[in-house]
């Protein structure tokens, strides 16, 4: 639609005057800037930040070395070295666990894949470094993050319906929820 302008409008440059008025009003609009290092946004619980490994409340590592996170990872940034716990047949653990944060795409599939909720994502996003090799997180670093940002990780798992409450978390420690175990027991009893 073409609006024809009258001669008076052209002479008075009304369009420009109107535009200038709009700009002038914006002089008094509060800026939308976040002064980032000083002011930080409140992140939602579902925020996908740095990955962390978690422990149970009594300090035992949750990870059972099943390699499912490694299989689920689309960018192949996870490397799990898994072996049997000596003296305890059928129980496995991961003596080494690496996540290459330079490759990670923060999809959260590894957390979904984990059967024992050992992996979770935190709200940590300020882990930039001068040395790129520092971004190759090993087991120690991942457990450190898990301890520091335990509340974030818990909130992430709850928000993503991975783990509803602490009681259910304890059940996974024995590889099967109580409900499954009790169902199995019932026919024999």
């Amino acid at each position: 639609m073409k609006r024809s302008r009258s001669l008076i409008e052209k002479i008075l440059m009304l369009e420009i005057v109107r535009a200038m008025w709009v700009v002038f009003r914006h002089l008094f609009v509060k800026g939308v800037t976040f002064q980032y290092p000083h002011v930080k946004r409140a992140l939602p619980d579902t925020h996908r930040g740095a990955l962390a490994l978690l422990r149970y409340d009594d300090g035992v590592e949750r990870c059972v070395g099943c390699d499912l996170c490694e299989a689920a990872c689309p960018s192949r940034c996870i490397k799990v070295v898994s072996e049997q716990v000596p003296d305890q047949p059928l129980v496995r653990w991961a003596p080494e666990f690496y996540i290459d944060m330079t490759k990670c795409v923060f999809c959260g599939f590894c957390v979904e894949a984990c059967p024992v909720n050992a992996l979770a994502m935190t709200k940590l996003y300020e882990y930039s470094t001068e040395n790129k090799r520092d971004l190759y997180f090993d087991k120690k670093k991942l457990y450190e993050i898990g301890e520091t940002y335990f509340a974030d990780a818990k909130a992430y798992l709850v928000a993503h319906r991975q783990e509803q409450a602490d009681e259910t978390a304890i059940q996974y420690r024995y590889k099967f929820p109580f409900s499954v175990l009790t169902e199995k027991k019932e026919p024999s009893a």
Partner: protein
Amino acid sequence: MIEMAQYLIVVLVTIGIVMVTVLLHVAYLTYFERKILGWMQDRMGPMEVGYHGLLQPIADGLKLFFKEDIVPAQANKVIFTLAPILVLVPALIGFAVIPFGRDTIQIFGLTFRPYVTDINIGILYILAFASIGAYGVLLGGWASNNKYSLLGGLRSAAQVISYELSLGLSIVGVLLLAGSLSLVKITEAQGGGMFHWFIIPQFVAFVIYLISAIAETNRLPFDLPEAESELVAGFFTEYSGMRFAFFFLAEYANMILVSCIATILFLGGWHAPFEALSFIPPILWFVGKVYLFLFFYIWIRGTLPRLRYDQLMMFGWKVMIPLALANILVTSVVLYFVKG
């Protein structure tokens, strides 16, 4: 002999004070512009260096001062070095005839005036030096041996020449009314309240002057010589460090200079708008009016996009110059019958 020495001291001290004040204002004009532009775009502008970014101009100056000074291998070194000076000096030299205030000050038996000198062809002097600045831009663009610089320089020359005509013609009406080329006399002719200011009889000339002055100082929406999206940085593409700072300073000094002239010619210089408000020092009125114009420049920059080159030329030659000529004609005829 003693009189001579006294005269020299007075002149040198006045020059020093004017230079330092102007350069400080130039530095803080960049801050002013960035802040206002930020607010207009719903941002905050500089916030980090000092309280609300107040030390930003100093940080910028230091940064430019310590930058490496690069001269392109294929450039004409003499002219390349000369060009920034040729731009900055005319921009600063114009302040010599600007009357900032009315009252003289007596210190140690010496009389200081609020302007360096009052020559009887003040406005002509400023116009003459403003045109020399165009040489700096043109030569800088040519000496860089870079196609973007050359195009920027050429555009600048064409633009400055076309808009200087309408700028000069818009001033003529005021000169007819004031009957003098001296900036002090022009200011004094507008005394006695805002209804004696020349903006009222010369409103058309005022608008023409404002638009031409924006084009003359290469500001948006007429910043074709340094059009970022087309010419990288126009005529100062190859300049870095202090040489770049010279161009930058010159641009802002020119902005202040044309604002000063607009204040003197159309808004009555140091005069208060009403007699009741004349308890505020004249120099503050002057600075306030200048900042009004500077704010207007930034406002225009925040509003309008850049003109196309042919639009710019057409507007200059087909609209501004005929209007300015018509304004002179009407002013002269009316003056002939009124003052006759």
